[in-house]
């Protein structure tokens, strides 16, 4: 198909009064008159407030500097590895995830998903209510979802900072932090091995794709993994159709993907913690 050439000079700018177009907004604000009785001058009212806040913050910082000056350990040496080796506190949540996930997931994919998910928030939240004021009652799902993700992030950091000691083992506050915890107390097993033995499946491969030998049990784990997302996508669609209708196809799928992935993180943690399952899904290239 031949492309239509567009002459920028001939383009028309349409102003949609209902939308938040810049031009429309300028018109709106220009028309809106705010009486001087509703407003105050920024100088001195707000500027002084900010000055007080800054001085207050600086005072607290100076106090912290006296209370706990910047530490300096021994000279860096590749020969002696400290035990445990801890990342800065703001990354300890991710480092804690290393206990339950492979590094490519804990260190790369999950943080990337968090970043992309955060960026997408304004684009997948079509709720016009709750703009510019605190509200829980008018946007329960968003607030609960965000609070849950935030809680997960902080609890993992708390665990990494205060509950992990030698060999990255768990230490309660009453445990002696200088004693190593006993090693090798738990044997982790892949889900497909459990399925294979409990269901009595044959080990003969169903298919072979290069290095990838697909067994029946492996196929079932794929089913479970894909099924988790499939069922997760389907339930709100079938039961809360209103929720789907409000979001539309693209927003709904993005929201559900990120929501289910977020929910999947604690689920995977508990599978490994309480059910001793190492990987849900095993392939020659990556394990989940």
């Amino acid at each position: 198909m031949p492309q239509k050439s567009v002459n920028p000079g001939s383009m028309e700018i349409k102003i949609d009064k209902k939308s938040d177009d810049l031009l429309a907004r300028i018109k709106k604000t220009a028309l809106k008159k705010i009486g001087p009785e509703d407003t105050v001058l920024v100088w001195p009212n707000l500027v002084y407030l900010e000055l007080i806040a800054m001085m207050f913050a600086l005072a607290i910082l100076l106090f912290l500097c006296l209370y706990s000056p910047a530490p300096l350990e021994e000279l860096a040496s590749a020969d002696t590895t400290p035990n445990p080796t801890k990342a800065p506190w703001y990354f300890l949540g991710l480092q804690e995830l290393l206990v339950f996930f492979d590094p490519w997931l804990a260190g790369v994919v999950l943080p990337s998903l968090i970043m992309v998910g955060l960026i997408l928030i304004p684009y997948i939240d079509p709720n016009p209510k709750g703009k510019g004021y605190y509200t829980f009652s008018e946007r329960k799902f968003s607030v609960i979802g965000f609070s849950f993700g935030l809680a997960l992030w902080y609890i993992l950091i708390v665990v990494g900072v205060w509950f992990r000691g030698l060999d990255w083992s768990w230490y309660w506050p009453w445990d002696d932090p200088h004693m190593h915890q006993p090693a090798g107390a738990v044997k982790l097993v892949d889900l497909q091995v459990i399925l294979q033995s409990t269901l009595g499946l044959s080990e003969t491969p169903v298919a072979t794709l290069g290095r990838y030998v697909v067994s029946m049990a492996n196929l079932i784990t794929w089913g479970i993994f894909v099924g988790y997302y499939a069922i997760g996508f389907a339930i709100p669609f079938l039961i809360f159709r209103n929720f789907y209708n409000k979001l539309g196809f693209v927003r709904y799928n993005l929201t559900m993907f990120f929501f289910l992935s977020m929910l999947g993180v604690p689920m995977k943690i508990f599978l490994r913690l309480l059910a001793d399952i190492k990987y849900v899904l095993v392939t020659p290239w990556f394990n989940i």
Partner: protein
Amino acid sequence: MDDLWAYPYRLGIGIFMVVGTFLLTVLFIGFTAWLERDFKKDK
């Protein structure tokens, strides 16, 4: 049953994580709800 509480503290860690996450979630939601009420009162 005893060994569930011994190292590696599987049950203890599990309960700690669930309770901790739950409490933090409630804290954040409660904070928002409190501010919602607080601002409505001021109006």
